[in-house]
């Protein structure tokens, strides 16, 4: 059975792009979230195998969302999506429980490598 994914990003463009990369690789995108709060709600509801999480989002940022998600489900597998120059924030996200990260602009091969590491 295909792995299920929840994509969290406030930009439709980014959600679409990540969704396309993952769908083409055989993943089942079961939900999308536009805010951190939305991400936490949808995670509880959908229990996906994988979450991709933007760092900067309105109404609860990605790092706080990771914190809430991992305290709800310590086994949650969250992949951070970072822009250049957010090094310190990514470290914070990993400390908060995220498992790996990719850096924008996304290269499909890089995204899939990171996903494999998170799920592997």
């Amino acid at each position: 059975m295909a792995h299920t994914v929840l994509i969290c990003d406030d930009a439709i463009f980014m959600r679409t792009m990540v969704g396309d990369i993952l769908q083409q690789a055989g993943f089942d995108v079961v939900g999308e979230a536009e805010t951190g709060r939305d991400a936490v709600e949808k995670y509880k509801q959908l229990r996906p195998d994988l979450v991709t999480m933007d760092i900067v989002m309105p109404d609860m940022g990605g790092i706080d969302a990771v914190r809430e998600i991992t305290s709800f489900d310590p086994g949650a597998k969250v992949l951070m999506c970072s822009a250049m120059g957010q090094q310190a924030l990514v470290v914070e996200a990993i400390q908060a429980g995220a498992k790996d990260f990719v850096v924008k602009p996304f290269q499909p091969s890089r995204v899939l490598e990171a996903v494999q590491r998170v799920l592997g």
Partner: protein
Amino acid sequence: MALDASRYAELFRSESQDQLQTINRALLTIESARGDASSAATAAAVAEVFRAVHTVKGMSATMGYQAVAEYAHELESLLDRMRGEGAAVTMPVMDALFAAADALEHGIGEASEAAPRTEAMTNALHRLSGAFRAAGGENAVSDAARTGVTPGAAHRASGALHRVSGAVAAEPLVEADSGPTVVDPFDGPGVIIRIRQSATTTLPGVRAFIVTQKLAAIGEVAAVSPPLEQLQAAEAPQGFAVRLVTGADAAAIEAAVRSAGDVDTVHVDMLGRARKRAAGPADEPIAETTSARVRQVKIDLSRLDTMMNLVGELVIARGRLVQLTAGSPDPALDESVTQMAHLVGELQREITASRMVPVGQVFDRFPRMVRDAARGLGKDVRFEVEGRDIELDRSLLDEMAEPLVHLLRNAIDHGLEGPAERTAEGKPAAGTLFLSATRERSAVVIRVQDDGRGINRARVLERARVSGLVDAGVRDLDDADLLRCLAHPGFSTKDSVTGLSGRGVGVDAVVNKVRSLGGSVELHTALGAGSSFTLRLPLTVAIVRALLARAGGEHYALPLTHVRETLEWGPDSVRQVNGTDVLVLRDEVLPLVDLRDVVQLRGVRAANATREIVVVERGERRTGLVVDELLGQDEIVVKQFDAARGEATAAGLFTGATILADGAPALIMDLASLL
């Protein structure tokens, strides 16, 4: 085994300099806690001075520098009495101690087997005895003075000297390793893992942090080198080492490291330091990035320079070779070129890393200088230093010492007010002088800040008008204009020449020096509140990372030190305001400068031609540089212009030139000059 002194002379001098810095630093600690001779900080500092003097004594005795060894011995005896009988730490005592340190430094500089005791040494010991006596340490003085002249001391010292050639020296006088001991984080139980990240790693610092987390899941991470904080701030793929206390086997450890991603090589040393010890000193130590390590590995700088130049040439040759063999039908050739390219990259990283030293090596000289300068002017200055561990290319750091001395002296001389004036202004009587180093992306930022009177804009403006630097109509100078005026050769607002600054080397020398190194200077000042100079420097001078851009048919290198980000030219980012193109970056509107205009390129860009924007920044200032095309990022080897010719031809726009992979030359832009 005979001791070949010449081989060790240089090592002796540099180690002794380290010890002298320790002595000066500790003396400053004692002075700042004066009146409280019993405090723990004072006791620790006294012990530190004692240990350092003792180490110098041991080293100079080993070298056969008898006069220095005996002087150090007597100094040690005096300090020992001071410690034991608690003479009050008065101002004359402090001054005498500093003078004694100076005499020691001078003695070390002049040291040879035949060199007699210098007059400065004799005077220093007398002065110190006298100061102790006056401070009430009566017994101390008589004992110490006696120690100073008895034949016994001299005999003990020379006796020890003779024993040096023997293998064992029981006399404490020649204990070679009795200096302040530095705890080696890799000296301990566990497995030592050396990791190198792949060349393509994104956010290498975070990736390295994940490695430590993966290892923490299978054991206890006992040490990381470079230190974790530095490691996770790294901008470039790096090599690092971890000591892990674990029950896991080598395969499991390697699997854990690799699961973090972007790992090129992993080397697991199950025997750890135990084997290293057995292998002896010829075995390479682990990544020498902690200051403790740097102190132990001394290499002739000219040798490192040569290596750096050679590896620079090699990088250029690699680029050519890769380009010439691209698309070759022979897979074996392709493979060996790829491997060679990788190895050259490794070599370059290692050599660059071996040139990096903590700025503390230069910063640590300043507290003493600041103290003396402040005392000379009757000012009370609290000197704070931050970021001693930040690393910078050795030759760059050496070049920065003089400009920093100048800025600090300027601050003490012109910036900070005397206690009376400060009190009248409602400020604390002691002025604060702050020196810091921080790492920002591909740059190191050094800041010299004071809370003094600030620079008088009106006065500078008046002077600038007189000397024709600004138009008569100019009413006000902003910080950048102010710096431009001050940096004008020979410009000074101080009419009298003091003993400290204002003689020759001015702000212009500082600005020129920093810019010649590919850096930039920024000034902030507010009347009554103080001034700060911010120096932004590349991490290393010889090879820098740069964006390669095209304008017309020419290629230009834009060092990443001042590049914030790049953008596509498009309706999202570029708007028209009053008929001029401006860049809209998030909520900010930035001016646009066209590289074609900057380099005065003839010909007009075709209407449908592509354009890209490089956001250039220096501190708070940003501007968009428009280029025809961005060709990617590369390590470039900087060839500096001849100083004399560079000034005229480059018109301040370029810091040097480089040779690209295809053999074509490219000019390296001084991006800070665009701001």
